């Protein structure tokens, strides 16, 4: 099994907290969030399985090559562009979210644009590297952050303030059917596999589809933690009052014997790392997909090409940061999540069709 694939999926699972997934699920906790969470596991597993199984017929190829094998070139380019937009927006929303929270809680006097600019420097300089190097970076980030994040999560479940009754109260509305937004938010957890559209080119071997069970279990556990911990701490009724329920919850834990009594600074630091890693991966993929859309006369190898793309990404992010505040960003995140699920299904379906055609031919 390819460990870098596991890292990518896992990174995406962890980063859900800054991508407004808990907010959306908590918002609909009495209106179908339970079903959304339960339904997302088989949907996610099915998508991962299909993608891995089909991709294994195209060793060391990316989405571009796969699409070219079944579709006319220009339709393929349109789809690639759409996919690149998805990846760019995914990174952009995480960026706006983490920049907004870190500025609000670490240095409130700094203007948002300034904070985002600082993040952008790091992101662009890392994302411009080759795919393999980006993967190494992800590995390092996870190795540093995951033990401490696990510590916070375990600490939360052991905490006296973790109220199982509040969680069970929410669980009692299991009969409500999920909304589309809730379902999209819940399935987001599993969407780390879609990084394969580019990363597959760097893999010698397609990861084995047998690992899908691991992802199903892991995803369910992380989804449960990210949904239930804020509810257990802030109450079934009161939790939706908060704009950032997870930040408030991290601040509600006390480590008596830690270096710092409050968990919040540690949490923000860890999540800055996790979201930086995730944004770097997403933008790296987005720029790579865009490169494939260029006319063939343009050389891929030119280093300037990537920089132009990243400059473009950065300026769009800054413009968005300039025009949006925390509420609008949440709305943008919601719309983006709604579009993500169908476009992901479409891409996976196309890959599946391509794989079948290759087998028959």
């Amino acid at each position, binding site marked *: 099994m390819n460990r870098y694939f596991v890292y990518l999926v896992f990174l995406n699972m962890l980063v859900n907290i800054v991508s407004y997934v808990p907010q959306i699920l908590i918002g609909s906790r009495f209106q179908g969030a339970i079903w959304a969470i339960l339904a997302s596991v088989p949907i996610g597993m099915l998508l991962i399985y299909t993608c891995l199984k089909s991709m294994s017929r195209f060793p060391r190829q990316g989405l571009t090559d796969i699409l070219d094998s079944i579709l006319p070139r220009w339709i393929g380019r349109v789809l690639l562009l759409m996919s690149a937009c998805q990846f760019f927006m995914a990174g952009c929303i995480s960026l706006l979210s983490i920049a907004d929270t870190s500025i609000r809680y670490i240095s*409130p006097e700094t203007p948002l644009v300034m904070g985002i*600019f600082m993040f952008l*420097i790091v992101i662009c300089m890392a994302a411009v590297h080759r795919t393999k190097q980006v993967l190494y970076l992800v590995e390092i980030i996870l190795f540093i952050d995951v033990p401490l994040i696990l510590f916070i999560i375990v600490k939360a479940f052991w905490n006296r303030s973790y109220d*199982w*009754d*509040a969680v069970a*109260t929410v669980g009692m509305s299991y009969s409500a059917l999920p909304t589309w937004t809730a379902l999209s938010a819940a399935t987001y957890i599993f969407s780390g596999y879609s990084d394969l559209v580019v990363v597959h080119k760097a893999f010698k071997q397609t990861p084995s589809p047998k690992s899908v069970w691991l992802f199903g279990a892991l995803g369910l556990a992380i989804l449960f933690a990210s949904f239930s911990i804020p509810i257990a701490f802030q*109450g079934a009724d009161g939790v939706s009052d908060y704009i950032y329920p997870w930040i408030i919850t991290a601040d509600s834990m006390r480590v008596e014997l830690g270096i710092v009594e*409050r968990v919040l600074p540690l949490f923000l630091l860890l999540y800055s790392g996790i979201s930086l890693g995730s944004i770097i991966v997403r933008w790296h993929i987005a720029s790579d997909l865009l490169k494939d859309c260029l006319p063939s006369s343009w050389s891929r190898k030119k280093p300037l090409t990537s920089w132009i793309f990243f400059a473009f990404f950065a300026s769009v992010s800054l413009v968005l940061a300039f025009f949006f505040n925390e509420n609008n960003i949440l709305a943008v995140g919601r719309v983006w999540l709604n579009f993500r699920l169908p476009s992901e299904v479409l891409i996976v379906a196309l890959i599946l069709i391509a794989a079948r055609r290759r087998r028959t031919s």
Partner: protein
Amino acid sequence: MKGKRLLVLLTLLLAGSALGGCGFKDIDKRFFVVAMSVDPSGKEDKKYLVTVKLAIPSPSEKFGSNQYTLVSEDTDSIAQAVRIIKSKVDKELDLGHLKAIVIGRELVEKGNMDEVMDWFVRRRDIQNIAWVAAGVPDGRSILDLRPPTERLPSNMLFMSFGQVGTETAYIVSEYLFDFRRRLRERGLDPILPIVESRGDQQVAINKVALLDKNKMRLVLDPLDTKIFNSFYQGIGKYDIQIRQDQGYFIISADNVKGSFTIENVQGKTVITLKPHIHGIIEEATSPISKTELAKYERQAEQEIKERALQFVKRLQQANIDPIGFGLRYRARHPGNPDHVWKKWVELYPEVEFRVQPHVRLTSTGQLG
């Protein structure tokens, strides 16, 4: 190539610094607010008397180095008060170290706690793990204590509530976020420990105020506070006095954990309380026989049963629910949360309580 990259980085950093200055203030230009109190205002046209306790740093940390200054302001809103207080001092107020919020008893009796707490929850820089308490006679006089045993201002409160120093079942501690949760949660009512100034710069914390969603309804005396605490914190170092013949004996329990179940028995909702007590006998007025521990256990169970029943019946009569029976009911009954809640509101006054205590004594202490 490398030099070029470095140049790019430097240019970017320079460009970044041009984006805006920072509002950083040095530590010598800040006042740290360690505790805050809200009382009803003495003036007729104003609502609150807000007091902040500003720590004065001392060069060495020793007993009695708890210098502070209090600044008060009468206003209609807490936010306004803090702004005006800023104009009365020469340094920037830093609320990041605010760890105790004392609300005057009168204000808790008057009610509208949601409005009082709003500012504390809304501010991003106030810790959610700050302790909330009710102050007797009022909040300001609790802040204005200068016990010679303190190393830092207000540290006495922090040590007591944090159960870092003293560990006792009489102290109930309530975090800001938990108070807020209880104000909003249907089926779990807010509580506030009562901090009483007892003269000589000392305090006593052994009572707890029970609130409905708005104001104070009941004050528990120390004995009931202890019973409540077994359901709330499940704290150790617990003592229980059991009457025996003409005298009594005292159980010292390492851990008391109260749990309860809600069942439907023949159309009637029954709540069964199950306190589990493991302990030893610490004091007795008449000789105690080691061989008759089982007998003492039964005696203790009988007495605990009576007391716990009395306690929950009081809660039921006042129609408040600090233990969370309602929340448990909601957690066991599927369906629309509003309907479930309505049903519970009708049910609660008629609920039947039962107590099934389980006492295990392991020793009679050093005397056999």
